[in-house]
Every structure is written in structure tokens, then in C-alpha cells.
């Protein structure tokens, strides 16, 4: 099975750099699955969930938008921000979600509305990814 090199970088650091079997990314036109030897592609990413399949394992990440470059032998994700599911601070995401909702409910100028919507989208993505991970993990850690 050929593999493809996946690199995820944010402005702050190199988050991930390994050979993987498959990447599922939240493109602006919908989720796309990328296997090795994919044709060259350049797209923007929506806030969403990025899934990595590697040696039968699956890694979930929340990303908040960015760019994706695909070449036959490598995939580069230039993310605005990216976090592994297990690193997500749920309390913080909840708080951010509430704040954004409050701002959306109140009468704010247009520019603020756009900002609030964007941060709401980011918070929701983080929560969704964290939630999925919790559900999947439950059977592994019975109480």
C-alpha cells in the first residue's frame, strides 16, 4: 500500500508530519477523501473535522479553516488553527460558543456579526470533534 506524506502546519507550529494511508478534509465544497497518488489539487478548507487514517488507526483533528494542497506524494494542510481531538478544551469551546451566541442574539454591527459567526463555527467544530471522540472511547473505558 503506498502512503502519502501528510503535513499539517499552523502559523504557530508544525502539528503533524507523517506518512498516512488516507486523509479526509473539510473542503469548501464538502468533505473530500484523499488517498495516495491523488491528482494535484488546491482548495480552501472550512472549519471542520480532519480525519487521518494510518495503519488502521484513526486520528481526529478539529481545524478552523485554511488551505489544502494535494500532490501525488504529499498533502500539505496550512491550517489557521488545528487541534487533536484529545487536546480540545471542551469548557473553553463551550464558553466561546455561548459568547458567540450571545453576540449573535444581541444587535451588533455587521462586521461583528461576521466575526461572531466565524467564532461560533469554530467552537461548534471543536465541540463536535471532541464529542465524537468521547462517544467512541466510552466502550474502551467502562465505568
Amino acid at each position, binding site marked *: 500500500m503506498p502512503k502519502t506524506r501528510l503535513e499539517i*502546519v499552523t502559523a504557530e*507550529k508544525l502539528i503533524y508530519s507523517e506518512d498516512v494511508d488516507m486523509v479526509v478534509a473539510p473542503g469548501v465544497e464538502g468533505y473530500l477523501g484523499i488517498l495516495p497518488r491523488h491528482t*494535484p*489539487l488546491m482548495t480552501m478548507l472550512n472549519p471542520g473535522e480532519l480525519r487521518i487514517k494510518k495503519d488502521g488507526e484513526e486520528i481526529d483533528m478539529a481545524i478552523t479553516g485554511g488551505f489544502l494542497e494535494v500532490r*501525488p506524494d504529499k498533502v*500539505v494542510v496550512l491550517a489557521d488553527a488545528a487541534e487533536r481531538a484529545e487536546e480540545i478544551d471542551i469548557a473553553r469551546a463551550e464558553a466561546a460558543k455561548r459568547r458567540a451566541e450571545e453576540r449573535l442574539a444581541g444587535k451588533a454591527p455587521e462586521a461583528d456579526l461576521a466575526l461572531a459567526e466565524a467564532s461560533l463555527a469554530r467552537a461548534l467544530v471543536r465541540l463536535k470533534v471532541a464529542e465524537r471522540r468521547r462517544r467512541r472511547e466510552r466502550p474502551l473505558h467502562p465505568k
Partner: protein
Amino acid sequence: MATLRQIKRRIRSIQSTAKITKAMEMIAASKMKRAQERGLAGRPYDQRIRQVLADVAAAHSPDADLHPLLERREVRNIAVIHITADRGLCGGLNTNMNRKSSTFILDQKAPVVLITVGRKGRDFMVRYGQKVRAEFTGLGDRPGILDIGPVARVVIDDYTNKEVDLVYLAYPQFVTTVTQRPVLQQLLPVEPAEFPKGQNVEYLFEPDPHYVMTQLLPRFVEMEIYHAILETVASEQSARMVAMRNASDNANELITDLTLAYNKARQELITKELLDMTGAAAALR
């Protein structure tokens, strides 16, 4: 031979200088660590976004006009984004950077305009009568990406309006705490990557090439400038720490020498007084 009082005064003056340089050294050292981390942490993104754009630029023929910022033109005007520190007392950092940029400007056949970031670079360029298109100072020790917006705006607008046809980015790159290298690299147009034969295929764009490029290119310009500024801050603090450490060392060495001289002079004086007294006593006898 200096008098006792003069030596004493000199020692005191150097001691207070040493206190200042020591304090500056410690301040720079504490800022340096953060600044270095920030500078280095930005490198992967910087390299990748450059690579991605180089790939895309190479895959498309230069005349397909994908985006104004990818357009290559005959070079009539050149812009240099000249980045230095706001403040001095950091060894040869600013001087080296100014020299690098001015050597480059003198070598060009086309006229060069400058966009300066940092007070030291601006002062230098203004003093030597260079054309400064825009200047930015006071970004501080921890610039944010939002501070870069206006700088990038000037660059992007000038390039899009064809006022400049080639843009360089000049900044002191951080190598190690004791080494900083002034570098000057091309920012626009984006240099296409070299591909092995047969791999040079057209890209698919989602949603469409123009839209992706409109989003990606300004971001690229911004990130490149931002990263260069982070490197500059890291270089500045490192250079200042080293310079101030040397200054403190030199001051302490001077103090040691002067103290020795002072003690010698004092001893001499005492001996002389004793001789006078014994001489006087002998004469009276």
C-alpha cells in the same frame, strides 16, 4: 599619573554604566527566549506556504493570468521591505542590515523604493536620501499578525497597481544567539518551483483558481512579512543580550584595572607621607 580623586570618579562612573548594561542584558535575555521561540515556531508554516505557492506557480504557465500577484513583468521599479529594529544598542545588527540593503540598492539598475519597518532602518535610509514609500515603527517586542496588515496592504497595492514589479524582503535572520545574518529574498512575484520532468501537471482548484488565489496570496504576503518581523525581533533581542554582556564584561574588567591603579596610587601616597614625616623627624633631630 591621575590623582586619586580622578580615578575614584572614573570607577564610579564605570560602575553605574555596568549596572545599566547588566540590567539591559537581563531584560534582553528574558525577552529573547520568547522571541526566539516565536521566530522559530513560524518557520514551518513559512516554508510550506512558500512551497505550496511555488508549486502552483510552476504548474501554471506564466501568461495564464491566475492572479495579479503572480504576474511577471519587465522590471521597471523595485521595492525593498527593509526591516530593522526600532532601537539600537544591539551590536552591529542594524548596521549590517542597512549595509546589506544599501549595497543591494546600489547594484540595481532600476530605481528602488523602500518600505521600512523599524526606526533604525528608516533613519538610515532617509539620511542617505533614499525614496521611502512607507514607514512603520513602534511594532514593539511582540507584534501580532494584525499589526502586519497595513504593511502587506502597501505591498499588495503597489504590486497590483504596477507601481513596482519586483518586491524583496530584507531582514536580519536569526541563526543562533550569537549569529544573525542579514538576508534579502524575493517576495513577489512568487518564484516557481523546479519540478522533475513529467510531474508538472495542472492543479484542480476548488472552488475555482481565482478565488483560491485571492485568498491564498494576500495571506502569503502577510505571513512572509510577519515571519520576517518575528525573526527580526528574535535577532534584536539576541544581539542586544550579547552586546550588553560584552559591555558589562568590559566594564568589569576596566573596574578591576582601575581599582588596582587606585590602590597603587593610594599606597604610594601613604608611603610618600611616611617618608616626609620620617624625613622631617630626621631633620629635626
